[in-house]
């Protein structure tokens, strides 16, 4: 598996012309590439056309200063590719890959709903899981909100 990962990283680094900030492995089958937020559409389209045809999901997490987005792609066999990119929490904007990859529509909406990231170019960036009367400035998966939830849980116990 490490050999396969090495090979994949080399091939991608050779073929993709843009900037790859970092490359590594994760878990059993994943190869991770970190790219700047501005290049996400180009790199994601490259990965999709290179054979990792299935976009499994888009994860988002709050790392304090930045909100990190992970785009999980896979093919019919290992290795799979995860693309990591980050947007600053103060200005969480990134280009939407939905116009190029329609499968991303629900996942981007969920990250937008729970973490407050703006996906520019998304055809319909509406709420997905939170209710209509949820306040606009509360993002449940951000660290501030998680801390508040922990406080509330403590009070209950």
């Amino acid at each position, binding site marked *: 598996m490490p050999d396969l990962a090495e090979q994949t990283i080399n091939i991608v680094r050779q073929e993709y012309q843009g900037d790859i900030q970092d490359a590594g492995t994760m878990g059993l089958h994943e190869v991770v590439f970190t790219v700047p937020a501005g290049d996400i559409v180009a790199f994601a389209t490259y990965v999709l056309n290179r054979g990792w045809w299935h976009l499994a999901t888009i994860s988002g997490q709050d790392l304090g200063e930045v909100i990190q987005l992970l785009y999980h792609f*896979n093919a019919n066999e290992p290795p799979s590719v995860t693309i990591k990119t980050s947007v600053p929490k103060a200005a969480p904007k990134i280009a939407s890959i939905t116009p190029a990859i*329609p499968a991303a529509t629900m996942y981007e909406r969920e990250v937008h709903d*729970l973490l407050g990231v703006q996906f520019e170019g998304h055809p319909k960036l509406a709420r*997905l899981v939170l209710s209509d009367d949820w306040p606009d400035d509360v993002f449940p998966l951000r660290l501030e909100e998680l801390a508040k*939830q922990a406080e509330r849980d403590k009070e209950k116990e």
Partner: protein
Amino acid sequence: MGRITFPIGPQHPALKEPESFRITAEGERVVDVDIRLGYVHRSIEASCIHRNYVRGMYLCERVCGICSHSHNNTFARAVESLLQLEVPRRAKFIRTLVCELERIHSHLLWLGVAAHEVGFDTLFMYVWRDREVVMDMLETISGNRCHYGMSTIGGVKFDLTPEIIAKCKEGLDVLDERTEYYQKVATEEGTFLKRVEGVGILTEQQARDLGAVGPTTRGSNVPYDARRAFPHDAYPEVEFDVITSDLCDVLGRTIVRVLETKQSVSICRQVLDKLPDGDIQVRAKPRVPEGETVVRYEAPRGELIYYMRSDGSDKPARVKVRTPSLANWPAAIAMLEGAYVADVPISIASIDPCMSCTDR
């Protein structure tokens, strides 16, 4: 012709769980569908961050009642991947057995519900009667009809005694025969075929582009099965086929699910025959070293993916769950465009939607 907008949901006899669809119809043709999800959002991902791994595993199991073991097992596998823990062989086989029994149960449930959606109540009653055979087997193994709590971090919790194995083999024989019968009904019963053939069309290109998973995409000729793509537990040691159908409609998905049930019965038999001796559990440390991992599993409805990140403590830093039902919604919306009003419930049912899974 006049346009009518009518709601299917949040409360509707066609839906077993609440979601809201606003269908605009011109006569009997659908011209617009507006879907609002989120009625059963329970903030499970956020809750996992406040709980240690064991409590999180039990919480994630309750994302869904039908594919509960999928979540339980995948969460445990994710933590084991972070811990770099190797699970005993016997535990892997027992996990696979419960995984496949759950698949049988889920597909039989779906077949009954689909029959009910087209008004074929007789098939619904027969299938759910036979589903009781699987439920009894699962209850004998784990004590529960759903939310079995089988997997734990490091193995499984309940062992299989020879009596349980004998009972399972009897049940599998019954299921094998009944699945043959349902395959015949699904492919030969005239009025049923009229309702499912040519209904809910999803072309192969659409299935690939929209990110559909599971029987929805395999019914459109896309041979993606996470058990074959990313083998785990006992799957490398059993033989099974990846079932696809090129019909691209509800009938195709029905056939895929029925044939997958037969495959699952075969896998269960192989697992029971090859069951190795040994422990069923190894001890796992409560504190998980820093790291992140991605784990995939082919739940009954499709590919389930967990992304987990740990920060060295006994609570995860991030648990991301993407359930197959969420992945299939764009495909469902594509199926409804230009469909008949009468076909809306069966088209939505054909992706086997689990609203609890979608919303978490």
